[in-house]
């Protein structure tokens, strides 16, 4: 799975925000704010990374346990699914 086309991640001052473009503005006429971890995962998903790779990357970046990394990713993916932001590779 990966992030749908038409969402641009931007760094504005110190904030990570996602701007919908194209016909995504019908559903997201505004911006989506991400925290630092979410922005990190967003970039990985955007490039089509698989879940195991994401777990490894998160563990390495934040020096956290496998379990915690997996939980963070599950929560993030669930939120993206709820907002219909994901598509199959």
């Amino acid at each position, binding site marked *: 799975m990966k992030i749908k086309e038409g969402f641009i991640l931007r760094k504005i001052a110190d904030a990570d*925000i996602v701007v919908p*473009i194209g016909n995504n503005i019908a559903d997201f006429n505004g911006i989506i704010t991400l925290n630092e971890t979410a922005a990190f995962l967003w970039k990985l998903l955007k490039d089509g990374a698989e879940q195991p790779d994401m777990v490894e990357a998160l563990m390495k970046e934040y020096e956290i346990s496998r379990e915690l990394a997996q939980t963070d990713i599950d929560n993030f993916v669930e939120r993206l699914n709820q907002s219909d932001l994901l598509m199959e590779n």
Partner: protein
Amino acid sequence: MDKINLERFPANGTFELTARCNLKCKMCLIRIDNKRMAELGGRERTADEWIRMAREVCDAGTIGLLLTGGEPMLRPDFIEIYEAIAQMGFIITLYTNATLITPEIMEVLRKFPPHKIGITAYGASSETYEKVTGDAKAYHRMIEGVELLRQLPSKIIIRTTLIKDNLDDLDNITQWAFKMGKDIEFNVSRVVIKPVRGGIAHVEDCRLTPEQNVAMLVKRKMDFIINPLKKYIEENPPQPKEGNETKRNTEDPIASINEKKLTLYGCDAGMNAYTITWDGKLVGCQLLGDCWTEPFEDGFEAAWKQFPDKVKLPPVSEECIGCKLSCNACPATRLAETGSMGELPEYLCKESKLAYKMQERLINDLKNIIKEGEMIEKV
């Protein structure tokens, strides 16, 4: 504790792609023609230059970008500019008179709809369009254009400006705008000021008198009456009836934190917002041309940084300093009306004084009505 916001950040930008327009609206602040353009000595920036500038402002953190004119669709390269900029990740607002929409323009707007579209509509008939814009046929083209733009998922704002020539058409314009549905916003400009940066319109001949303006304000803006009335009721609350009433703190706890902001002109201009004019100058807002830096020559970052050093505000007139009314005068409108950012703008001043007099009369009438109501209740 006073909290002072020292941040200066170019969050909102305006790209004035051209100051030319296919319509010749009598009250336009911006419009110039080829002759005036030659007199001013500038040149419109190319599509490549605007696209490059958009990349620079994107890197600098601009999030809201207004593409405007003049009429931006008058440029033969509008599609090229729009298509590139719309993919960079801005919240795009597009201002247009909706009379030049081609199938090719619609194709690119369907692919990348602006987040917001502001459409100027100056009448509800060909006759009014002829009087206001000098082009009767533009009315039907505007209606067709609005129908096309409404097919997009963009937020639509219909913007109108009242002058002597379309005053009688206000009810029809309003009706037409509201018929389109609740999701369409309808805005009427508060006052018309004189042209800026060499604009060629003669607004003194067509703008409403201060008296007409105030009459319109009362007619359209019920808030103008309701808000002071609310304030009056808050300051004169009905006497509580006997009984065990809960004591309540009526102060807003957040209002006690006095947030102060540093500004250059008394607003966001030059602090969190900027405009890049048709000829490539970075100014505080589209109405200002008093000072500028050169983003195309020096790069946006440098031009944005240099800008505050260029701003020189003259002292404001004594009469304005002593006045307690809040009005539409700001450095930009003062400059447009008087040629100086400090002078008293007679037209705006007269209009505001009349508006307050009218407001005072309305409040007094309402107070009397409330008192009469209380007396009837006692009887």
